[in-house]
Each structure stands twice: as structure tokens, then as C-alpha cells.
């Protein structure tokens, strides 16, 4: 990305933050809180997720067979099935059905698949009036805007925006104001349109092959009217929506509303086996009882491929097809909460999983536009009811985008980049962040000159112009003596008869910059009777992975295993300070390494405070650590990946055992997320995401603010003006 395109991106993001940011933030955070509450009430949440995942895995595996079964059943029921290769094919078919029915008006209930094929525009050209009946969709149709969220399309509009829009467009006798007035106004207007409709169009959340039953998940009731009133029903659905039986719907019915908007269940789950046995309601003939005549309904299912069957063949994109479009990944995403789907979205889909959809349906170009907005924080992984590893899909797509070549990189400074993967590939900015370890080595070897240089204004300018490192960010300071060197050099202090032995993993930050937290870790572990070694080891490969440089990340992973394996063989546990590195060992390495190497490392690696917690549980005394002096209060921000691994509670418990009073932040992510917040095009977004965190930390009014991850400490340092220490530094017996 050139500095001009970075500036343009920054401007676009700033504009969205100013205009739509507040409405998106309020609504998505509300949904997200609702999700936490609603799933907490569900005893068998994990079991239902596993079931849902298993059903989708099996269905996608057997997809061609299920499509055949569904087609046969629907045709036996008296409906028609059309399998469309792409959007144009689907639209032509829909237009033909409308023409055959002489239809002037089609009413439509909300469907992302229909957005994907842009059927409205097509029918409009064919002279069919299309009316959206979902209230949010209709607002956008009136405003001529695109959805900004897959479930709540008008999420970026406030009540006031909608009131202004309606008052201006429809000029009602009394200006509309309240949500109630706006809703009733829309209801009336839309009812009039539905009465005159010739055809009803819906999507389908699920299709059961065995009986030909479709499920529509809604709350407003417009889908019911759309299907019930006109005698012709066209449903458009991606081929991936097929599941075997009606019984298989059950876990989805229990999960979908909770995951998305935080409702235990939506008002209506329609289970239609079309053509349905309900009389059509012909308002052109208002006085004849609807139950009088024969029930003569027509039903067309348009099953759309549009790239999906190729996604099914693609080992990395296949999981995208498990997606049930619940929007949990959008609502839980810190970046999405700030800017919404107009920045974090493609042609049709938005949020975390949109990268997979857009890459599969539209192509890499479209995905490239917004793929960077996924920082890999992983908060969506536990939110997703079908357990899709969304960050991995984003990484893979980023890797593919990288391979397709330059998005405007600057040859002038090309020679400065360390370890270029290969000449054709990622942009300079990506490569610099991806090879941060090399820079760190260099920086440490040349400290303090490198630190002094980094702070000088001309260098700041050069870094921003060429590499896109925002000059408002303070760069980390390199330390002359690394942690590994310190550990090698110091006098032997190992406990004489150690209970346990660990290899403390010297991540790049701890080793070259945040050396103090490494020393504190060594002292704390030793005080608890543990023998500690700090072996030299390469970085985990997290930075290159997050830039989509998968081969580089794999090489790092192999280096890490080589360095740590001898220690594992001697019975040492591996203790990791940086939570994102533990996430690498535990999950990402599964994709990068042989299963056996991965398992051995993953099974014996622990996050530092998780390990301290274990030591205290097994008889270690908190008094060996630095305990609270009276009523000391700690405000603690856990790292996003640490939370995804359910490791926040350990740190809290350790602090409490050491006598501290702890409050925790509950924002999903600090907004820095590795190198994300350093990038000049994302600086404003990163700060916007960080603001609620800063607010919570300020409100806590604690004696100590602590944070587990390096990016979190950088970000909080910028937000509060004071860099918080790692929890272990507060507990350091040498403090």
C-alpha cells in the first residue's frame, strides 16, 4: 500500500467513525452483551455447538447427495428446484418466473443470498417492482444504501437518522419521532405493498433434504406474510444451506438467535414445507372467504452455487460454508464494533467471516479491500456457534492476496526489508511487520542509538512514509542486554531441589525489549521452587502469520520446536509470557507443524500466570511473591487471545490470592492487536477501539493498571499516558 492509498484508507475509516461509528457501536455491543447473557443461561451450550458443527460438517461433506435428495423431495411435493451456477443465472430464472406470472410486484423478506445476486436491480430492469419488507432492509431501500451488518442491515442508522429519512421522504402529517411511530408507519406502508404483491421472495436459513422443509428465522413476521399472502413463492438460497432432516434444525434454532442478537429465540421460526397448505390471501377479491377455493400455490427454490462448490473443494475455505450467518463474529469484533460493515465488509458479506465468503464468491480482490481489518485477535472463534476458525481463514486469504503480488510497494526502500519471503510477494509494510524479529535483533544490537533514532522526527517521518508506521505511536525501546544473555550471565540461583523445571520461552518482545518482565518471571518462578532456564529460541512466527506470510511462520515454528524439544525431552514445562505466543503453540501450530510436534509442545506449554496459579494450587505460598500491602486495587486487562483460551481467570485468581482487589476490563480487544495499531491507515480506528478500554481502566481508579500482552501495554500506554506493567512485574518478589 502506498502512502497515498494509506491516507485514503485512513480518511475513509475516519469518515465512518464520525458518521456511523456511534450507532454501530451501541447496537453491536448491545447484541454482544445479549449473547453473553443468553448463552450463559444455556446449560448445554457447548454440546449444542458441537452438534451444530457436526451437522454442518456432515452436510457439506455429503452436499451433492443432499442436494439431489432435496430436489427430489421438493419436486414430489409439487415445487420446482433450479440450480443456478451464478448470480446471472439465478436472476434470469427469477425474472422468468415473474414474467410467467405476469407479476408487477414482488415482496421480499430479508435474505443475504438475494443481496449477493443483486436480484432487486435485475428485476427492476425487467419492470418488476421489488419491495423489501424487513423493516431494516426497507429503511435502506428508501435511503438507497447498502446493509452494514448481515443480520441488522440498518445497524449504522440511529432512530433520529431514520426519522429524518421518513419525514423527508414521505412527509407524514405529523412528523414521526419515536421507534414505535416509525415502526407502525413502516408496518402500514408495507402491508399495503404486501397486499398488492404477486410474488413473495424469501431466503432460507436452512433446508431439510428429507422433507423439503425450509427454516426462516425472523422476528418481525414479514417472512410469514411474504410466504402466506401471494400464491407464488420463490426462495433463493446458497447450496450450503441444505441439512439432512428437520430434527437437525434443533441445535441451530437454539443457537442462532442467542449467537446473533442475544435473544434466546427469535419470535418466529417458520418451518415451511412448500408449497404450503395455507390459503393465499387475495386482497383483490376482498369478500370471498380465503378458505373457499383450492389451495393452488406455486413454489420455486433457486439453489445458488456462485463459487460455493469450489469452496467446498478448497481445504481452507470449506469451513466458510458451515457459517449460519448469525453475525456473532461481527458483533464480538472490536474493529467491527467501531466501523461496521461499510468498512469491514465486501460486496455483500461483512464482519470476520466475510473474508471467506467474499474470497469464495467475488474473488481475492474484493476480500483484499477489507481483509486487513481482521487483526487475528480470535475473539470471534468462541463466539461462532459452529466453531469456525475465522482468523485462520483470514490468514489464508491474506497469504493468497500476498501471492498475487504488489499492492503498490515502494522499490526505493526495498533493500531495507529483512528476510523478504520472495521478491514478488507482500507489501513492504507487511514484510517489515512480519519480520519484526530481525528488526528487534538489529535494534537491540545497536541500542541505545537505534532507540534514539526511532524517536527522532525525520526517522518518524521516513517510517511513516515508507513503511506506514504511524508517527504518533511511540516505538518500543530496545534493550542492549537481552533476557537470554542476562539469564546466561547471572549467578546460579536455581532452587537446590526444584519441584518443577521449566524452560521460559523468550519471546521477541521479552527478549529484546520488555526484558524486565522476563526477569520478574524468572524470579517469581524460582521463588516458588521452580528451576528456570531461558533457552535461546526464535520468535513464534506470530508476526509473519498475522501478515499472511504462512511459509515464513512455518519456518519459525520449526525453529521453535528445534529449540524447545530438548527441554521437553528433559521433562521441562514450557512457560510462555506473551499470550498470543501461547495461542500459536496451542492452536496455530496445528496448521503449521506435524501433529506429533504440535501436540508435544501444546500439551506442555502454559501461560505464565496460569503456571503460577498451578503452583499456588499445589501448595506454593503466595508469600513467596510480592503480596498486596493492605487494600491495594488492581485494574487488569487480559489479552484477547488469552481470553479466548479461557486463561483470564488464572491471573485474577493469583492476584486475589496475593491479597489484591481486582477489577477486569470486558472489552473484546484493546485495539492494538499486534502491529495493527502501528499502521498509519488504522491508527484512528485503533484509538477508537481503545477508548472504551481506557474509560474502564480510568473508572476502576485502581492503584495498579496491569496488562498481559505487549500490544495491550503499548496501546494502554498511549491511551493513558503510562505504560502498564505485566502482572508478573507486580508480583515480582524482587520488586
Amino acid at each position: 500500500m502506498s502512502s497515498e492509498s494509506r491516507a485514503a484508507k485512513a480518511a475513509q475509516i475516519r469518515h465512518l467513525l464520525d458518521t456511523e461509528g456511534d450507532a454501530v457501536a451501541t447496537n453491536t455491543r448491545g447484541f454482544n452483551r445479549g449473547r453473553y447473557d443468553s448463552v450463559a443461561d444455556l446449560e448445554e451450550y457447548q454440546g449444542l455447538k458441537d452438534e451444530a458443527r457436526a451437522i454442518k460438517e456432515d452436510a457439506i461433506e455429503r452436499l451433492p447427495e443432499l442436494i439431489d435428495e432435496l430436489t427430489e423431495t421438493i419436486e414430489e411435493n409439487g415445487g420446482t428446484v433450479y440450480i443456478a451456477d451464478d448470480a446471472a443465472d439465478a436472476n434470469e430464472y427469477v425474472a422468468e418466473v415473474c414474467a410467467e406470472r405476469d407479476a408487477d410486484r414482488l415482496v421480499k423478506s430479508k435474505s443475504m443470498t438475494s443481496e449477493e445476486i443483486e436480484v432487486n436491480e435485475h428485476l427492476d430492469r425487467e419492470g418488476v417492482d421489488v419491495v423489501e419488507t424487513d423493516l431494516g432492509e426497507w429503511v435502506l431501500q428508501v435511503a438507497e444504501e447498502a446493509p452494514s451488518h448481515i443480520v441488522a442491515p440498518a445497524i449504522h442508522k440511529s432512530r433520529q437518522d431514520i426519522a429524518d429519512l421518513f419525514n423527508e421522504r414521505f412527509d407524514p402529517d405529523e412528523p414521526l419521532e419515536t421507534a414505535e411511530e416509525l415502526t407502525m408507519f413502516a408496518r402500514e406502508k408495507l402491508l399495503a405493498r404486501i397486499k398488492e404483491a404477486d410474488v413473495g421472495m424469501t431466503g432460507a436459513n436452512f433446508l431439510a433434504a428429507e422433507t423439503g422443509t425450509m427454516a426462516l428465522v425472523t422476528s418481525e413476521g414479514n417472512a410469514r406474510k411474504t410466504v402466506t399472502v401471494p400464491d407464488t413463492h420463490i426462495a433463493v438460497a446458497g447450496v450450503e444451506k441444505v441439512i439432512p432432516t428437520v430434527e437437525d434444525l434443533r441445535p441451530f434454532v437454539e443457537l442462532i438467535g442467542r449467537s446473533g442478537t442475544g435473544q434466546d429465540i427469535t419470535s418466529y421460526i417458520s418451518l415451511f414445507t412448500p408449497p404450503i397448505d395455507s390459503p393465499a390471501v387475495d386482497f383483490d377479491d376482498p369478500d370471498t372467504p380465503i378458505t373457499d377455493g383450492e389451495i393452488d400455490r406455486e413454489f420455486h427454490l433457486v439453489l445458488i452455487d456462485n463459487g460455493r462448490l469450489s469452496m467446498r473443494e478448497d481445504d481452507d475455505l470449506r469451513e466458510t460454508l458451515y457459517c449460519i450467518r448469525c453475525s456473532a463474529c461481527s458483533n464480538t469484533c472490536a474493529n467491527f464494533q467501531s466501523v461496521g460493515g461499510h468498512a469491514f465488509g465486501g460486496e455483500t458479506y461483512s464482519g470476520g467471516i466475510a473474508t471467506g465468503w467474499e474470497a469464495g464468491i467475488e474473488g481475492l480482490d474484493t476480500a483484499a479491500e477489507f481483509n486487513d481489518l481482521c487483526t487475528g485477535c480470535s475473539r470471534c472463534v468462541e463466539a461462532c456457534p459452529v466453531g469456525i476458525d475465522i482468523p485462520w481463514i483470514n490468514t489464508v486469504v491474506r497469504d493468497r492476496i500476498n501471492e498475487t503480488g504488489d499492492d503498490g510497494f515502494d522499490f526505493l526502500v526495498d533493500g531495507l526489508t529483512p528476510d523478504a519471503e520472495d521478491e514478488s510477494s507482500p507489501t513492504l509494510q507487511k514484510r517489515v511487520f512480519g519480520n519484526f524479529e530481525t528488526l528487534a535483533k538489529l535494534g537491540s544490537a545497536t541500542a541505545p542509538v537505534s532507540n534514539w533514532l526511532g524517536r527522532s522526527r525525520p526517522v518518524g517521518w521516513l517510517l511513516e512514509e515508507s513503511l506506514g508506521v504511524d508517527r504518533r505511536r511511540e516505538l518500543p525501546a530496545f534493550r542492549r542486554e537481552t533476557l537470554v544473555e542476562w539469564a546466561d550471565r547471572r549467578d546460579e540461583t536455581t532452587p537446590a531441589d526444584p519441584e518443577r523445571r521449566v524452560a521460559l520461552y523468550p519471546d521477541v518482545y521479552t527478549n529484546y525489549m520488555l526484558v524486565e518482565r522476563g526477569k520478574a518471571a524468572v524470579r517469581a518462578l524460582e521463588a516458588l521452587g521452580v528451576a528456570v532456564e531461558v533457552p535461546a529460541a526464535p520468535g513464534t512466527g506470530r508476526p509473519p502469520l498475522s501478515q499472511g506470510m504462512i511459509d515464513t511462520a512455518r519456518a519459525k515454528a520449526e525453529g521453535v520446536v528445534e529449540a524447545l524439544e530438548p527441554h521437553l525431552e528433559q521433562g521441562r514445562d514450557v512457560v510462555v509470557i506473551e499470550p498470543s505466543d501461547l495461542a500459536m503453540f496451542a492452536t496455530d501450530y496445528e496448521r503449521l507443524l506435524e501433529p506429533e510436534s504440535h501436540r508435544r509442545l501444546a500439551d506442555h506449554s502454559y501461560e505464565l500466570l496460569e503456571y503460577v496459579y498451578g503452583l499456588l494450587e499445589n501448595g506454593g505460598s503466595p508469600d513467596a511473591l510480592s503480596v498486596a500491602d493492605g487494600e491495594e486495587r488492581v485494574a487488569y486487562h487480559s489479552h484477547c487471545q488469552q481470553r479466548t483460551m479461557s486463561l483470564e481467570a488464572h491471573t485474577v485468581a493469583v492476584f486475589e490470592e496475593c491479597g489484591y482487589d481486582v477489577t477486569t476490563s470486558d472489552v473484546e480487544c484493546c485495539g492494538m492487536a499486534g502491529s495493527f495499531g502501528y499502521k498509519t491507515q488504522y491508527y484512528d480506528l485503533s484509538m477508537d477501539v481503545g477508548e472504551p478500554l481506557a474509560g474502564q481502566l480510568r473508572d476502576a481508579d485502581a492503584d495498579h493498571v496491569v496488562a498481559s500482552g505487549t500490544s495491550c501495554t503499548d496501546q494502554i500506554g498511549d491511551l493513558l499516558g503510562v505504560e502498564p506493567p505485566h502482572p508478573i512485574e507486580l508480583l515480582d518478589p524482587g520488586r
Partner: protein
Amino acid sequence: MMTRSDTYDRFAESAGEYGVELTRTTAESLPGTIESVITTPVVGAPLPWDDCSLPEPVPTDPSPAELDAAVTGVSAASLAVADYGSVVLEATPGGGEPVSLFPDEHVVVLREDDIVPDMETAFEWLDEQFRDTGGSAIVATGPSATADMGSLVKGAHGPKEVHAVVVT
């Protein structure tokens, strides 16, 4: 094991959370009970049980105009789900679907015996039912609702109020 009355209580509690009003009655008193909770003009769909009938003022076989004018719609639920406070409304040739959808108030009649404890049981039933009949049904929970206009509003396209009459 949940007893029958536990199941009813659980249903009443969950449905109550969605603002659904409940009245418990017997088959004999059903017509009177329905009459006491409806607002006219009213439309209805026939109840599918031999011992249960609608009161005089509730005409079935509505025309579109009657549907449009009705304040209350009365129809039967085949099943209810205690955990969620949901009712299962089958789409039948008798017009149960439009009757339960157009008027502002839906009076849903169900038999206490047809309340099942959870979704799992409900979906076993639906699965079997649909395999036999190819039918259609709505799992309806509370009134229709939307939050698209800035805060939660009941009655977006469907009923604003739901009243369940449970026949013991």
C-alpha cells in the same frame, strides 16, 4: 423428571417473559373463556380437537377484508415448548396462519397435554409430523418484534399481543 404441572409452570414462566398472558381453562368453559379475552372484530380458524369449540362470536373462514379488519385472531397451537414459552402453529387449509398473523392480538388455544419440556422433544415431534404430512408450522415465541427503529417495538408485522388459553 418434570411432572405435568411443572411443565405447565415452566411454560407459563417462559411465555410470561415475552409478555404472553395466560389463562387456564377446561374444555367446557373454553368458549366462555375465549369470549372473555377477545376484542371484536374477531376472526378464527377451527380448533382441531373434538371436545373443543370456538364461541359464537368467532367466525371462521374469513375473507381478506375480515382478516384486515379484525382486532383479534383465534387459532390453535399443536404443541408448546416449556423451556422457551413457544407455541407451534401449523399452517392449515383452515387459515390458521393468516388468522394468527394479521390481527393485532393473537389468542392461541392449546392443550396442556401438548406442552413438551424442551426443543429436543418438539423437534422430534415436528420431524415425525412433517415426514408424515409434509406440513408447515411456525414456532412462535411472544409477539412479533423489531429493534430496527432504534429500540424494541412489539408488533412489527405480526401481532402486538399474544394471549394463550390453555385447556386442561
